[in-house]
């Protein structure tokens, strides 16, 4: 490990900005802690526990064009065959990006997304951004009031998924290089070695455990889900702030139109299984018509289906959905209720 001082850190980041997009926590928008690309290290806000929105958008943007389709109607003279011609273009790649001061939970979320999106057939857009991104992690000094990473198998100073990890210490940060990609960022920077070792911390938040699969199966038809969903507004904010929710919609948008010419973007946008029409097919059939079924799907996806299909929980304990839910649906309460009900046996809920 090395010691990097605050001054060295600024110089290091400034140098990276010449050929890379540097994404850091800022408070530029109404004081909210948010990851944003910046041109100067002075914009970094270090006074945050958790950003309001996860950095998943730098890998899976809220909206992106998957394809640009140019549709050209040929004149009879140019073609004696069919009169339409379509050309498909993939969007250009962006610059390499470095995400600075990424929290451990958000790096874990990327590992969870990798398990799905990098599985064959890979999601080429996500894969390219992952390949061109380097993560500089920043260990948390404390857990926030809604944090529960220690209950879902992680820790606030966990370096899994990071390329470089920083631990706040006296005089700057203890810096640990974890991957080749991380080493690539260190070229031409001379740092003193740090002999203090990894700072040891204890965490104050109460821990609980994620109920096993059998308990979830047992409670699938429990009335608890109806009661919980009564107050859900289907606003979908939980999915949008979640670092592991990746469900998306795909739509065509016509961006230019002229005589015999049409330019279309095929857009992919974040979506959420909380939406009423999410699973409705054109004939009108909707296999998940009630709010209760949809909210249940959210929790089963995170703690039962996703682990079964992709070998990883789809929850990293960041607590953002708890922070943002307008009606106080609390995922940690759900986990604890499910565990308690599981201990009592099926359909015994009195909650």
């Amino acid at each position: 490990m090395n010691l990097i001082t605050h001054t060295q850190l600024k110089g290091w980041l400034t140098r990276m900005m010449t050929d890379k997009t540097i994404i850091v926590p800022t408070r530029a928008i109404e004081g909210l802690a948010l990851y944003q690309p910046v041109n100067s290290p002075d914009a970094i806000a270090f006074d945050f526990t958790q950003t309001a929105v996860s950095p998943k958008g730098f890998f899976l943007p809220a909206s992106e064009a998957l394809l640009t389709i140019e549709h050209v109607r040929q004149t009879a003279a140019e073609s004696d065959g069919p009169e339409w011609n379509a050309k498909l273009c993939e969007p250009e790649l962006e610059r390499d990006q470095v995400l600075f001061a990424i929290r451990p939970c958000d790096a874990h979320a990327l590992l969870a997304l990798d398990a799905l999106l990098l599985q064959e057939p890979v999601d080429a857009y996500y894969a390219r951004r992952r390949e061109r991104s380097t993560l500089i992690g920043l260990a948390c000094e404390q857990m926030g009031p809604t944090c529960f990473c220690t209950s879902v198998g992680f820790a606030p100073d966990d370096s899994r998924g990071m390329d470089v990890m920083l631990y706040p210490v006296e005089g700057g940060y203890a810096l640990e290089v974890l991957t080749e990609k991380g080493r690539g960022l260190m070229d031409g920077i001379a740092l003193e070695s740090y002999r203090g070792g990894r700072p040891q911390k204890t965490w104050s938040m109460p821990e609980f455990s994620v109920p096993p699969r059998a308990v979830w199966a047992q409670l699938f038809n429990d009335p608890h889900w109806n009661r919980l969903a009564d107050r859900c507004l289907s606003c979908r904010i939980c999915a949008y702030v979640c670092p592991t929710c990746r469900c998306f919609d795909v739509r065509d948008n016509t961006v230019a139109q002229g005589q015999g010419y049409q330019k279309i973007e095929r857009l992919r946008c974040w979506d959420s299984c909380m939406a009423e029409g999410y699973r409705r097919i054109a004939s009108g059939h909707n296999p998940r018509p009630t709010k209760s079924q949809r909210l249940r799907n959210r929790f089963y996806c995170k703690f039962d289906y996703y682990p079964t299909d992709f070998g990883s929980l789809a929850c990293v304990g960041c607590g953002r959905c708890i922070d943002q839910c307008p009606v106080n649906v609390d995922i940690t309460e759900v986990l604890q209720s499910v565990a308690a009900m599981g201990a009592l046996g099926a359909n015994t809920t009195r909650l």
Partner: protein
Amino acid sequence: MINAYMPRLGRLADIQPLGTGIKLFKVRLENGGDTQEFTYRPGQFAFVSAFGVGEAPFGITSVCGIDSTVDFAVNKVGTVTRALHEMNVGDIVGVRGPMGNWFPMDDIKGKNVIFLGGGIGGAPLRPVITSILHNRDHYGNMTILWAARNPNLLVFTNEYDLWRQSPRTELHLTVDEGDAGWTGNVGLITALLQKVKPSPDSAAVILCGPPIMIHFAIIELQKMGFTSEQIITTLEAKMKCGIGKCGRCNIGEKYVCLHGPVFSHVEIKEFLESFL
């Protein structure tokens, strides 16, 4: 890196009416996207794009190696299907696929095969029937139960004679509601099943239709002595990607696009969440 969201380009080589609001689109693929061979098996599906409107998944009704085009039977019910219905021969569409699993054509060899097709649900069964017709000696008796809400919604009527003329093959039709010219069975496919009474001995049942039909047909088949192992169905779901990423088609931990669309009843009865 292959981009699984990139459609190939295809041209509509032919468009045939199949019923009220239902058309058969025959697509000739061009070298758009990538140039890998487009090989597919009975039961697989593909996304068809009406550029500017969007794309949607459809079962492939043609048979790879037999038909020279990739065919889709499309019921005009939503935005993409409406746009497709307005297209003409020669127009360009996008085709992304093939996707999903397929019917176990080898496992059902030597067996009596019973088909239950409801409405446009007959579309993914057509390639299974056609494949069997081309390898008739490898399969036992074929009993086709074909249903629709009304006579104008019965699909592939122009192939009925071909099916009937094949050895050891029966075709039974029923409609929920007849019309002036209809002299055949009137009633649900479950009633037709009771009337035809196919034997479960050495048989396999292949179903496709609306979820409610699949649900009640399976109950009826079980009453008749068919085991879960003998019942194979395809399920439909709203989808956006077809490759297990968009999250939209899950039934519990199963994705219709990845683990299906073909499921045996052995799997279905273990579903935590209902497909209904």
